[in-house]
Structures are given as structure tokens and as C-alpha cells.
């Protein structure tokens, strides 16, 4: 009796080949905000979301990494295999498989469907992106396809509003009748002849149920003719990266000025309203100067993500991997490593997780080791601050901004550092003669969906604001405390901060950092930078704000320009290219490699690189008269 009253709950799993739109479908069905992109291997972990059907069923939908078969060649494919086969100890096997196929590209998908049928769970085949298939003139006879495969078939367009209505009503029907229909699994890891037979069967089904257009779509081919051109293609890739970093500077400027002015105004307001004393200092110097100096960088981070999201949705990433394969191969990296490394420009954490698509252990480990060298978005605040304070804003050769050029150079330093380290690792530490194959599906170009881009940007903005509100804020409180206590002893001269704990720590580290030109204020800023790199900027903001006293509202960039030599600034930039910072990255390395020693190895090599790079930069700059 109670069972009838209580809503029934089911567990449905989304399975399909990479880039078939599982995550877009998952988002459409559960109103969730997972990351979607037009390249294979976006989902590297399983994610669950709730779906309520019209008849009141509760369905836990599990989004799984894309796979070509259940063989489990790489860590992400193993997740899919284990969930589909019901081998995960902590959870129930799925009640139904929602098998997602790209309607414009059925050959590979149907072979997977034929393999999945052997697992024995009830199945529903979802022909996703049906709108594109229809527009191209691909005519799919749904009834016939369903009859030939012996699996119910439904069409959907995950990215359109209302594109999933038919699917939802079928899910509702299946939820009513799904119980107890599974049969015993006859799945076994497919052999070469199994795969061959399954592909032939899939081709036969396609021949009988699908008619291809007489005039095939040639848009992708024509675009690729330019973008994959041996010379033009590489130049375009370089230009794209270059424009991206110029835009990060140029487009963000007005917005950043606005935010900075807002915080300045807020600081003055607090200064005027609160009585002089500890509270005033805490709110103005600790909270507003600190957090404000990090929040200013939100526009730049969003512009960077806008580019990455657009390129992902467009389908350009697989092309970039194609162009870069041999170049990366020369440095001992796999072509597939390009995508994780490019994600690392946003943040090393998703980048390191994305290495799960690399099946060879050594290749994966090399990629993980060098991923933190890619210039992540948390470095942007540090780079921007120092560049805008020390590098004059002028044009080189008439049209290229010098500041953007230096920024580009810092990114290039990170990239070449990574290539060098991976080359050394591959040839001296992780020696392996067998190079695994590079095979990658190149998806057709698709116009980016405004909604998906907006959702992606929103998610990133919220993540950044959340970090600013939690990690960065608490670090700022700590820094303010260290910089404010103990108070100025009675009768002592000079700025109070010289007697603080922060000064003691910073000065204690000075013998170590003097050869690389760091003063004690920088030393203090480096410590909380371990929690999040951009905190270093906020810490400098707080330290100099407290030290500056009345001119606290003064912008931190101007303060630095007056207090540091150019050599110190350049050394700090060099340090930041390589420094092993951000504890969360180290934690992810520990988790993904399953070993403390690889984490310490990463920390160690990066620390040495950072110190050496800063040392050389500083000493050379001083010798050239920039000290």
C-alpha cells in the first residue's frame, strides 16, 4: 500500500560514443549545468541528476563518459564500464540504458548499441541532434531502425527548447513498465571478430533504415580545408591564441576600471563612516582592498573562458589536437594531451582530470606532471598587476600592444617549459618505447549555442566568486591579522607593519629570496598564494594598504611601481610561470596519480624551476641595469 503512495524511483544511465551529446541531454533533462562542448572526452566522471516525470516517477539520471566500447581502455572508460555492468559496489545497477547517438553519425554509435544489447538491461536509443540530421537531408526510418535493432528508438534535440519532449514522455512510459525486464548479461570484452561482426551488422541496419543525402554536406570539409591547411592552419591556431590574449587585456580594461573604481569608492566610504581603529582597518584593508583586488580580474577570466567555450562548442579543439600532434609528439606528449593542456589554461584541476581520456599510463602521468605549467586563469591577476605596473602601455610595430605581448610571452614560457619538462621526463624518467596510437574523431563544426555558452560563463563566474568569498576571503583575514599584529610598540618609530608577524615571517625568508630580488612583502604574499595563486595579489594589496596608511585607497599597481625595481617585478613574473602553487592542484595530482611521491615530485621540480628562472631573470636584469 505504501509502495503505491510513495513515488517509484529508478536509475537510468546515459551511455554513448564520445561527443554524441550526452551531457547536453543530461542538462536538458535535469536542468543541470554540466559543462558541454563539441569535442570528445568532456565528461570524465559520472554525474548524477534528478528527473521527475509527469506521472510522478523519480529518476536518477547518470551521465557517463563517452566510450566506443565497454572494454575500458582508459580510466574514464572504466567508469562507464563499471556503472553499465553494475559493478560499482556502492550503487545499484542501472534499470535502463539511455543510449545516446549522434543522428548525423550513426555508424560508430550503432556498433556500440549492438554491444550494449548484450549487457541485458532494457534500452532506449536516443537519436540526438536530429535537427541537424534532418537539415542535412539524412532520412532515418525510425520504425525500421527500431525493428532492425530490436531496441525502441526516440529522437531528440538536446540543445533546443522543447527538443526533448518526446524523449521525456517515452522515459515516463518506460518508467511505468521498466521493472523486471532485464535479461541475463552475455557481455564479454569484444574480440576483434566481435567488433568486426558488430560493425557489419550496424552497417547493414543503416543501409536498410537510413538514406544518406544525395549531396553530402561539405561545410565542415571546406572549413577544414583552411583550418587544417599545413601552413595556414598552424598560423590561424597561433593567431587565435594571440588574439585571445590580446583580448584578455584590451576588452576587459573598461570593466576592470569600473570594478576597481567601485571598490575604491567603497573603501573611502568605509574609511569615512567607521571610527578610526582596528575595525576600520580590517574592513578597509583586509576585506575591501584584499577581496576587491582579486574581483577586479573577473572580466579577464570570463573573456578567456568565452574564447575557450566558443572554440570547444565550435568543434575546433579536435582540430587543434590534429595540428599539434606531431609538434607535441616531438616533446614526448600525446596528441590527446593537447585538450587537457588547453583546459589547464583555465585551471589545472579540470585539465588534470581531463587526462583520464589518455589511456597510456606514462603518457597520462607526463601530462599530469606538466599541466600545472600551463598558465591558469589564477595567474592572470598576478601577471596583469605586474605588467600594468611595470610594462609601459605602448604599441610595438604600430599595432601590437606591448603589455599583451609580454602576457603572450609569459604564456609561451609556460608552454615551452612544459614541453621541455615532458621531453626530459619521457626520455629520462618515464622511458617507454611503445608509443600508443593517436586516433580521434573530428566532429562536424556546429554553431555554438548561446544558451550553452552563457551557462558555461555563468558557472565559471560563480565558481570564481565563490572562491573569492571563501578561500580568498579567509586568506585575506589571515594576512590582515599577520600584518596588523602585534601592534606598534609604545614609543617605536616607523610604520607599524615593520613590527608585525608578517614582517617577521617575510624577513625570516629574506636570505633565501634575496638572490631572486624578492622583498619581505613578496615573501609574505607567496605563502597564502599556496591556497590560491591570485591571493598573492590580494595579500600585496593588504600589506601595502596597511603600510601605506592614509594613502590606502591608492591603487596597488601604482604602489608597486614606486616600491619595486623592474628586475624584482620581472623575477616575480618568472617565478609565477613555474611556481608550484595552489594546494588544490597538488591535491588533485595526488588523487589522480594515487601517489604522494608524484605529488612531491611535481612540487619539487616546479619549485626548483621557479627559483632558477627567477634567479636568472633577476640577475640578468640587474646586470642590464634594471635593478
Amino acid at each position, binding site marked *: 500500500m505504501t509502495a503505491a503512495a510513495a513515488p517509484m524511483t529508478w536509475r537510468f544511465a546515459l551511455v554513448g560514443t564520445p561527443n554524441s551529446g550526452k551531457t547536453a541531454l543530461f542538462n536538458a533533462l535535469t536542468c543541470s549545468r554540466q559543462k558541454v562542448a563539441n569535442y570528445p572526452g568532456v565528461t570524465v566522471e559520472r554525474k548524477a541528476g534528478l528527473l521527475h516525470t509527469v506521472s510522478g516517477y523519480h529518476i536518477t539520471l547518470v551521465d557517463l563518459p563517452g566510450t*566506443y*566500447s565497454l*572494454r575500458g*581502455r582508459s580510466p574514464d572508460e572504466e567508469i562507464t564500464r563499471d556503472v553499465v555492468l553494475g559493478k560499482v559496489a556502492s550503487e545499484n545497477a542501472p534499470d535502463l540504458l539511455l543510449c545516446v547517438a549522434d543522428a*548525423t*553519425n550513426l*555508424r*560508430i554509435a550503432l*556498433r556500440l548499441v549492438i554491444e550494449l544489447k548484450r549487457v541485458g538491461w532494457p534500452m532506449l536509443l536516443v537519436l540526438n541532434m536530429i535537427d541537424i540530421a534532418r537539415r542535412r537531408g539524412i532520412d532515418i526510418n525510425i520504425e525500421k531502425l527500431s525493428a532492425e535493432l530490436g531496441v525502441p528508438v526516440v529522437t531528440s534535440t538536446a540543445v533546443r527548447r522543447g527538443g526533448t519532449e518526446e524523449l521525456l514522455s517515452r522515459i515516463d512510459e518506460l518508467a511505468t513498465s521498466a521493472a523486471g525486464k532485464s535479461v541475463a548479461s552475455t557481455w564479454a570484452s*569484444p574480440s*576483434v571478430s566481435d*567488433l*568486426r561482426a558488430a*560493425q*557489419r551488422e550496424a*552497417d547493414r541496419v543503416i543501409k536498410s533504415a537510413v538514406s*544518406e543525402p544525395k549531396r*553530402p554536406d561539405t561545410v*565542415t*570539409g571546406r572549413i*577544414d*580545408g583552411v583550418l*587544417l*591547411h*599545413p*601552413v595556414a*592552419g*598552424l598560423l590561424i591556431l597561433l593567431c587565435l591564441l594571440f588574439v585571445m590574449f590580446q583580448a584578455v587585456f584590451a576588452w576587459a580594461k573598461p570593466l576592470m576600471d569600473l570594478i576597481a573604481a567601485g571598490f575604491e569608492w567603497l573603501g573611502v566610504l568605509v574609511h569615512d563612516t567607521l571610527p578610526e581603529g582596528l575595525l576600520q582597518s580590517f574592513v578597509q584593508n583586509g576585506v575591501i582592498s584584499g577581496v576587491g583586488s582579486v574581483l577586479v580580474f573577473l572580466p579577464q577570466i570570463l573573456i578567456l573562458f568565452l574564447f575557450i567555450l566558443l572554440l570547444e562548442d565550435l568543434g575546433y579543439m*579536435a582540430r587543434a*589536437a*590534429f*595540428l599539434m*600532434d*606531431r*609538434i607535441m609528439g*616531438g616533446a614526448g606528449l600525446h*596528441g590527446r594531451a593537447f585538450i587537457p593542456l588547453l583546459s589547464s589554461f583555465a585551471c589545472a584541476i579540470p585539465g588534470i582530470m581531463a587526462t583520464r581520456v589518455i589511456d597510456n599510463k606514462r603518457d597520462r602521468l607526463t601530462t599530469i606532471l606538466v599541466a600545472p605549467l600551463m598558465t591558469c586563469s589564477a595567474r592572470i591577476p598576478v601577471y596583469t598587476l605586474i605588467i600594468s605596473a611595470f610594462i609601459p602601455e605602448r604599441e610595438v610595430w604600430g599595432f601590437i600592444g606591448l603589455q599583451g605581448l609580454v602576457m603572450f610571452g609569459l604564456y609561451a614560457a609556460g608552454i615551452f617549459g612544459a614541453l621541455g619538462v615532458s621531453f626530459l621526463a619521457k626520455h629520462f624518467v618515464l622511458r617507454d618505447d*611503445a*608509443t*600508443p*596510437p*593517436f*586516433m*580521434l*574523431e*573530428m566532429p*562536424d563544426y556546429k554553431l555554438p549555442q548561446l544558451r550553452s555558452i552563457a551557462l558555461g560563463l555563468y558557472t565559471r563566474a560563480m565558481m570564481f566568486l565563490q572562491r573569492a568569498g571563501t578561500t580568498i576571503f579567509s586568506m585575506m583575514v589571515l594576512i590582515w591579522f599577520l600584518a596588523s599584529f602585534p601592534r606598534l610598540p609604545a614609543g617605536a618609530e616607523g610604520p607599524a607593519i615593520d613590527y608585525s608577524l608578517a614582517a617577521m615571517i617575510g624577513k625570516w625568508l629574506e636570505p633565501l629570496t634575496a638572490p631572486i630580488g624578492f622583498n619581505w612583502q613578496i615573501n609574505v604574499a607567496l605563502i597564502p598564494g599556496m591556497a590560491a595563486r591570485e591571493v598573492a595579489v590580494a595579500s600585496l594589496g593588504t600589506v601595502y594598504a596597511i603600510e601605506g596608511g592614509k594613502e590606502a585607497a591608492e591603487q596597488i599597481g601604482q604602489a608597486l611601481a614606486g616600491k619595486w625595481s623592474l628586475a624584482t617585478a620581472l623575477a616575480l613574473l618568472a617565478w609565477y610561470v613555474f611556481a608550484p602553487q595552489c594546494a588544490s592542484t597538488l591535491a588533485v595530482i595526488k588523487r589522480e596519480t594515487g601517489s604522494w611521491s608524484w605529488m612531491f615530485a611535481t612540487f619539487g621540480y616546479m619549485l626548483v624551476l621557479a627559483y632558477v628562472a627567477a634567479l636568472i631573470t633577476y640577475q640578468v636584469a640587474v646586470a642590464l641595469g634594471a635593478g
Partner: protein
Amino acid sequence: MADPQPSVDAQERTPLGLAERGFRGRIAVIDAGAETIGASSAETERRLLELGFVEGATVEILHEGPLGRDPIAVRVNNCTIALRRREAMAILVS
């Protein structure tokens, strides 16, 4: 004329890995054979099959990589796959 059909076929077969851009043909055999390819030969064969390289499928080399004309982008029936020439050696086409 009296020759058995297969031997004529065998003469025309070339590895896809040696073909140039613009080549069109049909897959005769997938055989990773004794080639010393990175992954084991059976594994290479399985991967090629998983991406739709199966006997009888039509292939066309659409693009070549910038360095050493490697990797290649191959149209297999209606899908484009990027792979290195080394693995494409296992695909014999006619």
C-alpha cells in the same frame, strides 16, 4: 585471365599510411599484423574497428598534418577520424 581473383586484388592493395591527400578507396583488409606498432597489434586492430574502419568501408584522405604530413584526417563512410600514418599502415586499401 586465368589468374585467381585474390592475387589481382593483392597487387592493388596499398597501406593507407602511404597514401597521399586526396586518395579515395575502399578498405580491403584491416591487419595490424606483425608491424611493430606501439600498442599490441590486436589492440590497434580493435581501436581501428571501434572507429569504423572495417572491410568494405570507403575511405578518403581529407587532410594531412603540418609536420611530415602526419597525422592524417580520414573520411570513413560519413565520419572523419584523425590518426597517425603509423597506425594507418594497418589499413590496406584498394
